[in-house]
């Protein structure tokens, strides 16, 4: 894992010192709210519906036990005992008071963390495949390049006042677990003839105008990556629509100008940016990469795992749903679900955070990951330790066996917290998870990803949910639109609207009807919901949702 250099430490300390003074000046009245707001946003501090909210960056979703312990401390000392993990691998605290925030930032700095550029029109936290460095299907660990991008983008003087926010995601595998096609820039580590390079996508994004990213370059060599990415952001910085915030994201720029024109402009700008890089970035990359060397995996028998797998059906169910193949023999990647049925997706209590930190230290080479699907990962665990890990997780409400299933729902905070929301998300997620747990058919349904957003900004990724749910305000009542067929992976696609929306109390029955139609029409348990949808299209689902008067109701919508 990356450790802060003296430069990093001094930089964060200086920013915290500045922010402490900015808070004091706001309280004294020397700064107006209009002056203070961009300053607090630059430091991750929002004002939400009921309170301030502090968004803390977890770069590429990686953290160690001490960092997770510190997140627990913040939750206990300055919040209400819990934190909320987000779809951009960050953590949000929902209840801090203004005077406490500088102390929270200082506490984060003690463990090499901060909240810089988690808001505002800047390059945000760089996200990555949450199985980075562990996945069996990986070309190379994407985190060194993610860290390089983080250092390059932090306080980058040219990119502090961009037309709009800018999000970068990196994957090291063909199987995309980082949703790179829904990011402003998506980067895939690729190998051509033994040489490592980067496939660069641009112009993806969700929100009110969802777009799937387009390929800008199939292979950018290592030595060109930073100048190339700088050229992309630089072209957009000048070309991006500052006249209209809804048209300011790079996806609109790419859409309006076309990918070919953008590619030409980037090439011409690249000639300039490349000349300004002197190779220091390559030396830095090597230094960073050395810090992400894999841990010393042990070669040990796995009989304990096999025995528990045979003997304990609860353990077996958990391993079947929550484990992923690891690149090292005898090892597994274990996901800790933060989606206990009926609980808030992505929330963890301070006690649970400490349990996960302790497990990482004892069994997981001191590494944890946060997924964009709002779960936690122990990326490197030896299989023989899994029975004990499972027992500890179970004792703390962390052993829910539902990864990738219908109750493993992404939900944004929605109108329970967010000032931008138009409807609530969390109660809908809680009700769906509770209902399908009662029905005891989750395993039978298999892989089915529901994603819920409480407004059109789509923090809950509803467009790329197999089933997407979007909460809206229809004449003063919460109303939910449903989309089907979205996909967040390398075969990314945007979901299609089923038809008229549903009031809150009709959402669960609607989801049941959709799932019922899938179960009736699938060719067998091996055909997933998405496959069935792609084979049959919308018609059978529409019929299940709206009955024979489908056409009439759709026209009326």
């Amino acid at each position: 894992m990356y450790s802060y250099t003296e430069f990093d430490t001094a930089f964060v300390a200086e920013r915290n010192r500045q922010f402490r003074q900015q808070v004091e000046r706001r309280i004294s009245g020397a700064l107006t709210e209009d002056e203070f707001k961009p300053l607090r946003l630059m430091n991750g501090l929002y004002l939400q519906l009921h309170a301030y909210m502090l968004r803390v960056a977890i770069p590429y979703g990686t953290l160690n036990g001490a960092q997770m312990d510190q997140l627990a401390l913040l939750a206990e000392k300055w919040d209400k005992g819990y934190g909320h993990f987000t779809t951009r691998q960050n953590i949000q605290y929902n209840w801090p008071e203004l005077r406490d925030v500088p102390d929270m930032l200082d506490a984060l700095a003690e463990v090499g963390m901060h909240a810089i550029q988690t808001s505002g029109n800047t390059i945000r936290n760089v996200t990555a495949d949450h199985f980075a460095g562990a996945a069996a299907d990986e070309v190379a660990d994407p985190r060194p390049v993610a860290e390089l991008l983080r250092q390059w983008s932090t306080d980058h003087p040219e990119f502090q006042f961009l037309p709009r926010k800018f999000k970068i995601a990196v994957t090291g595998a063909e199987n995309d677990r980082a949703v790179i096609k829904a990011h402003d820039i998506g980067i895939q580590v690729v190998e051509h003839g033994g040489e490592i390079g980067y496939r660069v996508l641009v112009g993806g994004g969700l929100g009110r105008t969802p777009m799937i990213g387009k390929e800008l370059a199939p292979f950018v060599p290592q030595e060109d990556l930073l100048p190339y990415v700088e050229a992309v952001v630089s072209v957009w910085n000048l070309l991006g629509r500052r006249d209209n915030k809804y048209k300011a994201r790079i996806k609109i720029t790419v859409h309006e100008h076309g990918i070919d024109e953008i590619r030409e402009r980037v090439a011409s700008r690249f000639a300039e940016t490349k000349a300004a890089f002197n190779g220091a970035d390559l030396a830095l990359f090597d230094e960073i990469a050395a810090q992400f060397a894999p841990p010393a995996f042990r070669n040990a028998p796995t009989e304990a795992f096999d025995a528990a797998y045979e003997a304990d059906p609860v353990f077996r169910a958990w391993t079947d749903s929550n484990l992923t193949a690891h690149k090292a023999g005898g090892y597994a990647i274990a996901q800790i679900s933060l989606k206990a049925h009926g609980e808030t997706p992505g929330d963890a209590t301070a006690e649970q955070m400490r349990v996960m930190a302790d497990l990482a230290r004892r069994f997981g080479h001191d590494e944890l990951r946060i997924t964009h699907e709002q779960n936690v990962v122990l990326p490197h665990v030896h299989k023989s330790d899994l029975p004990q890990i499972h027992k500890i997780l179970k004792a703390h409400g962390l052993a829910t066996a539902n990864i990738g299933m219908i109750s493993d729902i992404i939900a944004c905070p929605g109108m329970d917290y967010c000032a931008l929301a138009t409807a609530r998300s969390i109660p809908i997620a809680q009700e769906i998870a509770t209902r399908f747990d009662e029905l005891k058919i989750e395993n039978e349904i298999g892989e089915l990803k529901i994603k819920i957003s409480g407004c059109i900004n789509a923090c809950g990724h509803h467009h790329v949910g197999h089933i997407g749910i979007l909460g809206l305000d229809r004449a003063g009542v919460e109303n939910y639109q449903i989309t089907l067929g979205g996909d967040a992976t390398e075969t990314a696609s945007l979901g299609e609207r089923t038809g008229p929306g549903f009031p809150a109390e009709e959402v669960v029955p609607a989801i049941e009807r959709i799932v019922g139609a899938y179960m009736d029409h699938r060719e067998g348990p091996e055909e997933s919901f998405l496959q069935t949808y792609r084979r049959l299209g919308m018609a059978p689902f529409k019929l299940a949702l709206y009955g024979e008067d489908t056409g009439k109701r759709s026209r009326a919508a």
Partner: protein
Amino acid sequence: MPKAFTPKVVTANALLEGDVIYLASDDRWVRRLDEAEIITDEAIAQLRLLDAQARASEAVGVYLADMAPTEDGPQPKHFREEFRATGPSNYHHGKQAAG
């Protein structure tokens, strides 16, 4: 005929705590909606809003929220204001916990 004026309360978030506050008739910021002043005249509402917005060291994001006057005090016309007056639905936090 002009449209009838929907009664309002002046509301904001407190600068220091960040929580929801309402303006009472004696100019105090209060935490409970039932203690808020309900304003039935548009001109008065605009004046109260201007005065409240000037109190920048106490309140952030001051605005007028639509309310229905009842015997139990102002009742929100929109669900967003109901949530602000109550707190989140997933935990017993916010106003509902303050009693």
